[in-house]
């Protein structure tokens, strides 16, 4: 069981709206919902990439990425999926100069 204060606390902690948090609590239960909210705050551990098999193979891409020092895992089932490990969370320096960005996009 959960109370209104649990919804407020989780919405504040994970920075989602009250209605979404309440929906997750109702649908998945309190404990599971918190796990879902927590997982959404972190990136995947293995970042997937699609290999363009019109031009190359997973093995060839793996060799080329490894030449740049990138660790690569090839999917066991599909020949067009590879993974790159994501590292973190890392400590970072902070500056008083702030740039606000919505996401890292081109």
């Amino acid at each position, binding site marked *: 069981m959960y109370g209104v204060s649990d919804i407020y606390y989780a919405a504040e902690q994970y920075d989602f709206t009250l209605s979404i948090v309440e929906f997750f609590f109702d649908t998945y239960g309190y404990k599971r919902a918190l796990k879902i909210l927590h997982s959404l705050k972190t*990136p995947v551990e293995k970042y*997937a990439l699609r290999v363009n098999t019109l031009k190359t193979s997973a093995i060839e891409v793996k060799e*080329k*990425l490894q030449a740049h020092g990138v660790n690569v895992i090839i999917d066991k089932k599909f020949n067009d999926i590879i993974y790159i490990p994501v590292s973190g969370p890392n400590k970072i320096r902070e500056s008083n*100069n702030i*740039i606000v960005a*919505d996401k*890292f996009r081109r």
Partner: protein
Amino acid sequence: MGANLYSKGVLKVENSINGDYVSVAPPRGAPVAYGLQKLDASEIFKKRQGIAVQILESIYTMPSLRELRVYREGLLFDQSYPSIILGHILEPKPGERVLDMCAAPGGKTTHVAQLMNNKGVILACDRSSNRLKTLQDHICRLGIENIKLMNIDSRLLADNYTLKFDKIILDPPCTSLGHRPKIYDTVEIQQSNSLSQYQIQLFKTASKIIKPGGLLTYSTCTLPYYENELVVQYACEKLGFKIQEPFFKPAFKGEFSEEYPDLSMCLRFYPDLQDTPGFFITLLKKIN
């Protein structure tokens, strides 16, 4: 995640100038990166292109793939695991006629082209001309030859064209609550309910332009069942579709499977149980 910050993504520059060390922060929450500012604010907001901040430290890091030659040469596409799986589940064949109703930025469409070995035709529609330009860039980079682009709201396709398709990809706009990492989100659950009506409108069009016996993948990158199982259930009850068992089941069954056993053939990727974004995929066949 380690990639540089491009001008397009900048919302606000507070006092700093080219050459300053800066923290990069989302609109809400703590800084996520630290780096060297490469452009003045006026250049960032006037040109909206180029690297605004060279990232030196990031909370989560991975290589800046887009700056590598393997990416520029079109050997890779940046796409989540469930999104790639969708292409395999649809099993497109060379020579088929495929429609992608909400195609941009193009991960699924270009994957299907790849699986068709550049043979056959894919009509890739999107209502955003800007996003179609991004897709066009990917098509050139990847060496794809069998995608035709159309700038249209796909709900209008049945009114204007008589074409029928062997296979359809329907990955409509959704609340995107499965994205990872998600630093904050302002979506309300009512928006999920509203979007499901738009998703159903797209499904109605799909039901008119798919060949009898044709296959359709319906997918979203969100969690609420309003946009997932309930939309699929509507398509089955009202639009003549039937859920199909995918040849590969790397995820959990659909919600409400106990009440509606066919929903057990849906694929649910849960971010707390799998190392993937939250995602939903269903393969359907047009029966009547």
